[in-house]
């Protein structure tokens, strides 16, 4: 693919993203028209008297922003893990981060809640979110510890370890469900399905402050990820400090996904398929691939959120939608691309 076609593909991607953001702002249980919003805005009335504008500002905008930030963050984490572990299946989700986060959230729901000993608020995090964050970060650090041992584990083995940890967390979740009271189960299960249906700007601000610096750090590693494409030794011979790159990527990704999972629950497949889909358009150089994936990831989750609102009357949990779209799409990609190129 030539430079020009690639550039136009990137421009098209950005345009698509903007269109989806606009659609996400206007489409919902109640569709808003641009004319009505402008009219209400011009009237100068307070928000309580302008229903459309109120929905836009208090619900649609924060929700869209959360979808954007979460999509960007998860995709970038997926892209980084794929490069670091040289494996097409490496994502936060497959490494068990989401499952551990869910386990933390379940534990917090059981032992927190009304009168529980584990109830607290800290820096805008509830005990549920704090525990989800702590457990997902714990999972990544465990994998990093295995990766950085003296007898190094092969990337594919690490991935297997991640999947196993995910299974461990899943059985932990089952055990917690067994312990839980029936009325707690409803909240727990809803959390497990993921959702960006926030109201107000507090989660937007937390996510923005958490994800932005992580995204910048990861984007700055792009040329190092390129070097890893030929293996760790080749990269080290070229002057990349591979150990430092590993540490940085693991820490940053664990922090970022921890924040995301704690706020919106586990949302799978975005981090897996978006980088692969983008790679077929932009090629494999991370200096182009990563920013393009960032944009595409945000757009993708916006689209999923629109579907979440419109697919049925009422909400469909977004985690279900990403999996329902993502899994078949990934299978399609598998049949198209030669994944044998990857170190598996």
């Amino acid at each position, binding site marked *: 693919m030539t430079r020009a076609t690639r550039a136009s593909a990137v421009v098209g991607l950005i345009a698509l993203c903007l269109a989806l953001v606009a659609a996400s702002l206007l489409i919902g249980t109640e569709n808003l028209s641009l004319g009505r919003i402008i009219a209400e805005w011009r009237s100068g009335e307070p928000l309580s008297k302008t229903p459309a504008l109120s929905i836009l500002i208090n619900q649609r905008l924060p929700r869209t922003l959360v979808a954007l930030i979460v999509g960007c963050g998860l995709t970038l984490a997926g892209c980084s893990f794929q*490069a670091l572990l*040289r494996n097409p299946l490496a994502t936060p989700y497959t490494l068990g981060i989401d499952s551990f986060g869910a386990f933390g959230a379940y534990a917090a729901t059981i032992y927190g809640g009304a009168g529980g000993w584990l109830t607290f608020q800290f820096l805008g995090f509830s005990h549920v979110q704090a525990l989800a964050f702590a457990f997902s970060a714990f999972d990544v650090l465990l994998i990093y510890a295995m990766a950085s041992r003296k*007898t190094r584990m092969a990337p594919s083995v690490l991935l297997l370890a991640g999947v196993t940890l995910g299974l461990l967390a899943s059985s932990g979740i089952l055990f917690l469900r067994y312990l839980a009271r029936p009325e707690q189960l409803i909240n727990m299960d809803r959390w497990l399905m993921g959702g960006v249906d926030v109201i107000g700007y507090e989660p937007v601000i937390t996510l923005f402050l958490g994800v932005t610096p992580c995204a910048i750090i990861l984007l*700055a590693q*792009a*040329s*190092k990820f*390129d*070097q*890893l*494409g*030929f*293996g760790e*030794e*080749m990269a*080290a*011979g*070229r*002057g*990349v*400090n591979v150990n430092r790159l590993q540490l940085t990527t693991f820490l940053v990704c664990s922090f970022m996904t921890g924040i995301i999972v704690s706020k919106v629950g586990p949302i799978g497949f975005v981090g897996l398929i978006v980088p692969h889909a983008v*790679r077929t358009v932009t*090629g*494999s*150089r991370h*200096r182009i691939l990563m920013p393009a994936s960032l944009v595409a990831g945000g757009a993708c989750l916006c689209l999923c959120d629109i579907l979440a609102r419109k697919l049925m009357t009422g909400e469909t949990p977004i985690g279900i939608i990403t999996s329902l779209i993502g899994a078949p799409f990934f299978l399609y990609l598998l049949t198209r691309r030669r994944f044998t*190129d*990857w*170190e598996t």
Partner: protein
Amino acid sequence: MTRTLQAEDVAFAYTPPVDVFTRVTAVVRSGEVTGLVGPNGSGKSTLLRVLAGLLRPREGKVLIDGRSSAHMSHRHRARILGFLPQMVNPVFSLTVFEVVCLGRYPHLGALGSTQPHDRVVAERCLRDTETLDLRDRDFMALSGGERQRVLLASVLAQEPDLLLLDEPTSALDIHHQIEIFALLKRLAGEGYGLGVVTHDLNLAARFCDQLLLLSHLSPRLVAMGKPEEVLTESLLSEAYDAPIRVCRHPLTGAPLITAEEPAEAKP
């Protein structure tokens, strides 16, 4: 620039206290092809990685022009020393030109964007390795010999003074083996210093200026010197712990080495 890379009395252990080798001294000089030869498991590749600074010796020092290489930054070292591992395959599909541009990494700024000058260097390295006509091909679609030359071009794009190569001809047919070694010899003539691990004693005999012979029995250096001095029946038989015969190549006059068949065990 004339450089000397030297390993001084180095010992290395993957899992201490089991040493792969101890008290080994090796030198790679500008203008010479130095061959690292020896049987499987003798630590040739490990020694090459110690020289490259990728593995840290348990004892002893690795010096570049008399200065310890352990204190250099990774990038600084990469501008002096190029390293090519055995059989590398990319994870991502890249064009030949992109592969060669990757070699510019130690010269790039913090954001890693290639400047026009970097692309000029990459073109030159393609020309030097006679791969310019492959420029826009997919790297994965190349033949083994073409890949090896392109990888060599990408290491040359680092603009190092010294090159360390791990079995650059192991997967190639007889014609491409000679082609690569002839290229290495030419690079040495242009002033590069090369350290090459190889299993092929006959190629080493023909193309190397210096040889290091390692043994696997008590892993250590058996001999160091010119090919005619190192490739003798007694030294080789000691290093390989097997009867080895040496004669003269009828065409090139270089030593011609062959192993004897093991004596059949009698019941």
